[in-house]
């Protein structure tokens, strides 16, 4: 009986919500309503365009929108297309997007300049639930352009530094030429325990530093699993090896957070392209606790 009551109240609440939605829909002109529901992008001004490497660049958009670290946006140019880009900032005042030129849309975005416009919708998805981790030690492992969403996490931590204990950063780049967020690295070095690795030495300039994968850094490190949360983002092979190493260090599955990459089109959990075993990456992700996804590696 009690259970029934609960479900009833829930359903009535839901129907109330629906009614509200419908009322607002009839009250306003259809154009404005459509914009609200996220299928139609908004025009946003680029207030800063920064080229990080030959193929990476960062866009700063004049858009006052609340977002969690780890969420993403659908950014595009009408006529060319749209693609999902993760937000790499944590601020109420602007949105920063770090983009790598891979496909049609990202290449077209790379030709834009400061003062230009992009069309974006979002933010979509579930970011890192940072408020859960108060009082924990944080380990951040990023590889290549997977560092972009983690930059939002780092900015969150710098803003709420007292909530977290030790912060360890392990960042891997392909070579010193491919370093993104070079400026930020300097400030992170002062505040946190920063470890950077390069897979290869650069082809032309002489480079004297260490060469090796991030996974090696973690294998050699001496931290234990107590009161620790790990965020991993990067190429799938890197994430898998890092997880294996962490398992050997006796980390639990619920201490590890990974982010999944899929093809996304609608951003609202409908189009089905991003579905993994019934989970929509665009709506229920892109950040997942490892035990939510660990059985579905092949799908």
């Amino acid at each position: 009986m009690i259970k029934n009551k609960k479900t009833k109240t829930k359903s009535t609440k839901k129907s109330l919500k629906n009614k509200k939605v419908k009322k607002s829909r009839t009250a306003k002109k259809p154009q404005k309503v459509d914009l609200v529901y996220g299928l139609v992008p908004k025009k946003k001004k680029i207030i800063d365009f920064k080229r990080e490497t030959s193929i990476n660049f960062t866009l700063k958009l004049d858009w006052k929108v609340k977002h969690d670290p780890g969420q993403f946006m659908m950014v595009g140019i009408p006529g060319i297309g749209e693609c999902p880009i993760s937000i790499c900032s944590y601020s109420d005042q602007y949105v920063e997007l770090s983009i790598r030129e891979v496909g049609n849309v990202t290449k077209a975005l790379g030709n834009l300049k400061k003062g230009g416009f992009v069309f974006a919708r979002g933010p979509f998805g579930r970011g890192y639930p940072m408020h859960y981790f108060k009082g924990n030690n944080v380990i951040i492992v990023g590889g290549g352009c997977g560092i972009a969403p983690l930059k939002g996490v780092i900015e969150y931590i710098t803003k709420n530094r007292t909530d977290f204990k030790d912060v360890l950063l392990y960042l891997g780049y392909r070579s010193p030429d491919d370093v993104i967020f070079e400026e930020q690295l300097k400030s992170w070095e002062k505040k946190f325990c920063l470890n950077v690795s390069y897979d290869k030495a650069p082809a032309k300039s002489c480079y004297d530093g260490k060469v090796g994968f991030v996974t090696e850094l973690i294998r050699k490190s001496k931290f234990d699993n107590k009161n620790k949360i790990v965020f991993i983002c990067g190429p799938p092979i890197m994430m898998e090896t890092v997880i294996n190493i962490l398992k050997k260090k006796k980390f639990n599955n619920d201490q590890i957070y990974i982010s999944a990459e899929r093809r996304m089109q609608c951003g609202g959990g409908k189009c089905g392209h991003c579905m993994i075993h019934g989970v929509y990456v665009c709506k229920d992700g892109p950040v997942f606790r490892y035990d939510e996804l660990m059985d579905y590696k092949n799908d």
Partner: protein
Amino acid sequence: MNYVLKKEVFSKFVNSVLKEKGIDFIAPVKSEQNDIIKFQKLISFSDLCLDKNAYYPLKEWFFKKNEVLFEFKGDKITIPEKKPKPKIFFGVRRCDLNSINRQDVAFSEGCWDPYYFLEREASTLIGYHCFEKEDNYCFCGSVGLEDHYDLMFYDRGDYFLVEIGSKKGAWFLKQRIRFFKKTTERLSARKKVIKNANRLQKKNIAPFYDHKNWKKGVDLCLGCTSCNTLCPSCYCFEFKDKVNISNLKNGKRIREWSACQLKDFSEVAGNHIFRSDREHRFKHRIYHQLQYFNEKHGKHLCSGCGRCIRGCPTRIDFVGILNNMKTKKPNVKKPKK
């Protein structure tokens, strides 16, 4: 309160609705050229075909094959204003009524889809009950169908028994009350059961994901996507930008149907395909229909109409494959907690 519509009056009723202005009357019609039944705008009463369920589902009337989301001219975006004509859908079977309800759920979940619901709100659904399964492909009895209709017609020999399911239906009936008579007759749930249609014996298919019997179906699959396009409840789509040839800065963004059986369905930039295996794609559709949707919403996405088997060139009977699976085999994974 139920109503009765006598069969002598039935043609008069249909003809009077056909004459009404501002309303489209859409019903299953048999094409003269190729013998298939489709939901089309009815022109004369003699075209109406109620012997069999339609070969093509109803979904294309709500979830359009090509829907213009917006038009752009340079930096300006305009949304085409739409005022869909009120439509009466007649002769919709129980399975199709349920699949429309599933699409309602899918398109209202998360962000509410205005394009779909504009059409949906302009529609009145009048059902037509089948008392027996149409052919061996039907399995609607085993997916747990619910009652979702505005009006429902039950064929009782020389008259139709009409049940009202919603205010919309009641309003529709009230306007045309001269054709109907009140009655106290009621059909019990047992009498409404569609006979011999509970072919799928498995209630939970989750433990069989890694079963080796799937290979029988996968080997037969041609990847033609008939199962997706014929399915009344499949709702996957994709966006496409189409630019005008006269000015490449102008154009429109279109929402098109997509199909999860396509290899490039899960392809990302950099040419990586996540479900590149035919087996994964094949199982993905069935598990979405019979498990994933159920986990979220408490009901199957599949409505058991059997179109995916009827329309498949090789007639892959996944229901039969599922029925033949046994839990005791050693290579079966344990159910997840």
